[in-house]
């Protein structure tokens, strides 16, 4: 019984993917549109892309920019968010600033940044950095604000200085919330990665996709969409593994069954 349920839990995402592909296949057969290849045609084009050295270099360059943008954003945003959550002055200073930046689509800033920094790696990495920063800052801020005061008092009584309390109490206590922000940030990093390459065409996964679109190679376009989607799923799965390991202490212990499960 339990092993069956566990098996079901494992197999569920696979079934979801198969279902989605099947629906795609049926829809494209029904629509008979040139710019909408079937799922099978798109999947057939994947090996061509991944087998091509040029394309692989492009995709790896994209991933590298994304990793740097994400990494730097997380390293700066977590301390900033935590400080904002624990200091009213810091929050009062940065909050209006972030409020202005938050709703702006980061890709919309690209043309300006391109004027300043050119169309190279720096511009694209910067845009990814901006896209990732805000959710991470926001969640770190909320997490730090919610830290139980008595916990900080306990630390203070043990002789922890304010800086030590921030690193050794606020950071771990807010970690579940921070990691929620990082997970959102990771997805946004992938999205901004593609959009940045759409605007500054030069290299990258987004470049392959939009070049193919220009040339009317729709199977390649959809193959790239599958590849990007798969990258997103893989990154998210890896991140989720790490996250679950780091905050095992905070996870609820039992599944709370709803009426339908």
């Amino acid at each position, binding site marked *: 019984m339990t092993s069956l349920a566990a098996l079901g839990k494992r197999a569920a995402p696979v079934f979801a993917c198969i279902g989605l592909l099947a629906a795609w296949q049926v829809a494209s057969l029904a629509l008979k549109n040139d710019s909408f290849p079937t799922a099978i045609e798109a999947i057939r084009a994947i090996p061509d892309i991944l087998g091509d050295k040029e394309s692989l270099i492009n995709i790896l360059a994209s991933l590298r920019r994304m990793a740097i943008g994400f990494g730097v954003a997380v390293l700066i945003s977590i301390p900033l968010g935590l400080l904002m959550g624990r200091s009213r002055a810091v929050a009062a200073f940065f909050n209006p600033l972030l409020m202005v930046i938050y709703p702006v689509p980061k890709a919309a800033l690209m043309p300006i940044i391109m004027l300043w920094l050119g169309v190279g790696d720096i511009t694209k990495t910067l845009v990814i950095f901006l896209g990732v920063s805000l959710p991470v800052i926001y969640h770190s801020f909320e997490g730090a604000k919610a830290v139980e005061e008595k*916990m900080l008092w306990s630390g203070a*009584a043990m*002789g922890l200085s304010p800086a030590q309390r921030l690193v050794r109490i606020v950071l771990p206590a807010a970690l579940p919330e921070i990691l929620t922000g990082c997970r959102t940030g990771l997805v946004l990093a992938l999205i901004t990665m593609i959009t940045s390459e759409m605007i500054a065409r030069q290299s990258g996964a987004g470049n392959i996709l939009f070049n193919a679109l220009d040339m009317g190679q729709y199977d390649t376009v959809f193959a790239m969409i599958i590849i990007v989607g798969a990258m997103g799923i893989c990154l998210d799965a890896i991140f989720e593994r790490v996250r679950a390991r780091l905050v095992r202490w905070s996870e609820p212990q039992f599944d709370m069954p709803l009426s339908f499960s």
Partner: protein
Amino acid sequence: MKVVPSRSSEWVKPVTPQKPASAIIEIKGVSQVFQTSARKDHVALSDISLTIDEGAFVSILGPSGCGKSTLLYVVGGFVSPTSGSAKIKGRTITGPGPDRGPVFQEFALFPWKTVLGNVMYGPRQQGVRATEAEAQSRALIEMVGLKGYENFYPKELSGGMKQRVALARTLAYHPEVLLMDEPFGALDAHTRTRLQNDLLNIWERDRKTVLFVTHSVDEAVFLSDKVVMMSTSPGRIRQVIDIDLPRPRRRNELLLDPRYQKYVVDIERMFDEVEETGSPS
């Protein structure tokens, strides 16, 4: 109403030789006013003065909301009073320090640390070597009856177990003054009795100064040298009762002792009065 216990000839001297009692904590004219969300001033503590002798076990009794926790926070240095001052060993308290160890009503355990990690936290912070800190912490965990739970996380413990971890965590770094906010409130009667005995044993051995908040008259009389009775809105001290009962105290002997019974009955009556009338106008 005043409780004047008759000093009987059976009065037994404390285990430690009697030093001239010196004040370790002096609270002078402390008031605490909170701004409530309705933008009204709420007087939680009004003109509290209290002196606590070094090595004394002092309990604070009073109805819910009378400011017992707030008073403890002032002594802990976690909040600064609106007016008045609190001193420890003659120095004005301006912030928390390892000389005063709080045990909070809400436990405030570190959820990302195991039971052992929580208890070791203080000693490690104080620079005790890891092996030594671990040995001491394991002994404390055993004392509070949690042997076998060393590697459990707080979320895996019951309320009473958390409370015991909180107690062990504070005892672990040997504060001179223990500030305990209803530390046995979430325990079943049996564990409560056991931990009261353990606390008394520790206290009789180390003679730490203890400021102990409780709802239970029984507990206050059993443990304390002095019981401070507070009344509510605004929080005031109504009476300070010296508990003149022999030490070391044994529960089974004390329960049969008419003097103990009289203290309990008298203080319970006082509690009822305080609760009915609130503060004197």
